[in-house]
């Protein structure tokens, strides 16, 4: 921790940033554990076809609602589909959509937040008001409206999540960028006549990478939860896609007959989000980003 450079001096991209990240990882056990859990989930999602020989969407009426056995480790659901196979494949939808949605959201939010901090003045005021107005509409309602209007494709869900979460990211990034903007090297860059975009990319962004990374891990955990809720309500993944939220919705009514069919996706979902939260906690502590103080 003592080796970390906490003063916001311009950090050169490339090998130095990489060693810095590696050092942080080693210094924080929480972050290591969290990222390891997430990595395991990614691996399982990628290697799902090798891990199970069952087809996650193949119905088999003669083997419906079985308990755990040697053939079906986590039993089968009401259509006779292997629960374990569906859980293993289920991470593909959750991770794929969530990672894309979070990347888009954090990228957009970072640009908007930095622009607000750099420009300041009326631009900042107007933007702040608009972001406040968007924030005041519950994200699940915004999501439901966008999805009913445009259909339930993954692209639509990514767009809907960006709309409802960009304001929150922008607000946090703006706060971090405001601390960088008064620095001499930003003034110097302005005096050199550099464009806002190039100041943003070369002077501001390298100095708020830590905040943006923590934001990413934290928003990812929210997005996974939101997408699973959406699937649970029947607006996310279309059946028979294997998805954890959808699985809970499908198997909830049979929970007394085959509890594993509901519990297995719940465990998968919870471990992924715990991993993301641990990563966010660990990184924020190691980098001195006050995650809890920044509004959740």
């Amino acid at each position, binding site marked *: 921790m003592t080796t970390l450079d906490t003063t916001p001096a311009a950090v050169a991209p490339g090998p130095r940033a990489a060693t810095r990240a590696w050092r942080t990882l080693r210094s924080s056990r929480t972050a290591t554990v969290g990222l390891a859990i997430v990595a395991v989930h990614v691996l399982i999602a990628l290697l799902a076809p090798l891990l199970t020989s069952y087809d996650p969407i193949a119905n088999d009426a003669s083997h419906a609602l079985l308990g755990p056995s040697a053939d079906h480790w986590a039993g089968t659901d009401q259509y006779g589909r292997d629960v374990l196979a569906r859980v293993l494949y289920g991470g593909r939808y959750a991770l794929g959509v969530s990672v894309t949605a979070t990347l888009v959201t954090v990228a957009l939010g970072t640009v908007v937040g930095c622009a607000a901090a750099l420009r300041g003045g009326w631009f900042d005021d107007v933007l702040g008001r608009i972001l406040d*107005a968007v924030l005041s*509409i*519950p994200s699940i*309602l915004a999501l439901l409206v966008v999805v*009913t209007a445009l259909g339930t494709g993954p692209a639509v869900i990514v767009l809907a999540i960006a709309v409802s979460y960009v304001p929150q990211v922008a607000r946090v990034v703006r706060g971090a960028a405001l601390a960088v903007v008064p620095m001499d090297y930003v003034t110097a860059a302005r005096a050199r006549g550099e464009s806002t975009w190039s100041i943003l990319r070369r002077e501001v962004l390298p100095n708020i990478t830590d905040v943006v990374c923590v934001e990413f891990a934290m928003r990812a955990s929210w997005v996974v939860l939101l997408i699973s*809720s959406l699937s649970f*309500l029947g607006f996310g993944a279309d059946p028979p896609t294997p998805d954890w939220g959808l699985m809970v919705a499908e198997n*909830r009514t049979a929970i007394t007959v085959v509890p594993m069919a509901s519990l297995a996706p719940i465990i998968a*979902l919870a471990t992924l989000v715990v991993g*993301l939260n641990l990563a966010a906690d660990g990184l924020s502590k190691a980098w001195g980003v006050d995650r809890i103080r920044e509004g959740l």
Partner: protein
Amino acid sequence: MLSFVLRRLASAVGTLFLSSVLVFLAVQALPGDVATQILGKDATPDAVAALRDQLGLDRPAWERYFDWIKGALHGDFGTSLVSGKGVGGEVAMYLGNSALIALVTVLFAVTGSLVLGILAGLYRDRWPDHLISTVSLIGMSVPEFVVATVLVLCFSVALPWFPAVVLYGPDASVGQLLPAVWLPALALAVVMAAYIVRMARTSVIDVMAGEYVTTARLKGLSTWRVVTRHALPSALLPTLHVIALNVAWLIGGVAVVENVFNYPGIGKLMLSSVQNRDLPIIQAIALVSAVVYVCCNLAADLGAMALNPRLRTRGRTR
């Protein structure tokens, strides 16, 4: 101080105005013609044109916006496209049922999480802290529908204490709904408390490291007195904002939980009106949520000002 309050009020009204514009524009942008939707695909063009005229759909958007907002200020949100009843009354009825859940949730979550958060803060890095922090981490890592499902499994199936689903309609009395309120409220409270616990813990740790707490201890005050007289008031302050944010989050959270329990509240209305594309109801719910959000934030800011003398005198804060 008065100018701060006034400025804060003005900004709240401004935010509300902007969000009402956004809500209106978003709903207008939904594809599909409202008149065709009401009459069905087989309607004659004449009938569609007549209905468009009757609903005033041919007038410019800004004119319709002002009509809508003028009605909304008087409590008239138009008529539901599905039931044909007044939107205002319908939303109010469902909202009242949800308020019951919200009230119990906030009571559970705030008291529970403050006690746990302060305990964790006082026993920092010892086993009560580790236990509470782990549980709250898990609490914030599971979605509401999972907590709700597990609660149903425990307290309706294994121990049949509470109903798993509500069989009453939206016009049920408080007495009929009361047995069904506890499980949804508990599910929401668990998720909500997880965030507040973390906040309360951090602020207690900060406050207990402060010089005035050391002074109070040196004066020979008991730990209990130090906590209740010195630590608690200051620790409450930063927690207030998180609580306000969470109350605003509730309106989204109830959507999921109410559907698990089939509870006739605003969340259930939200989902069914989205499915039926009942635009006036969607607009009304979005506007009501915006009002709740803005009011919660306003209350938190003004409350923080009332509790913090430094904010009270400095005047300009954000």
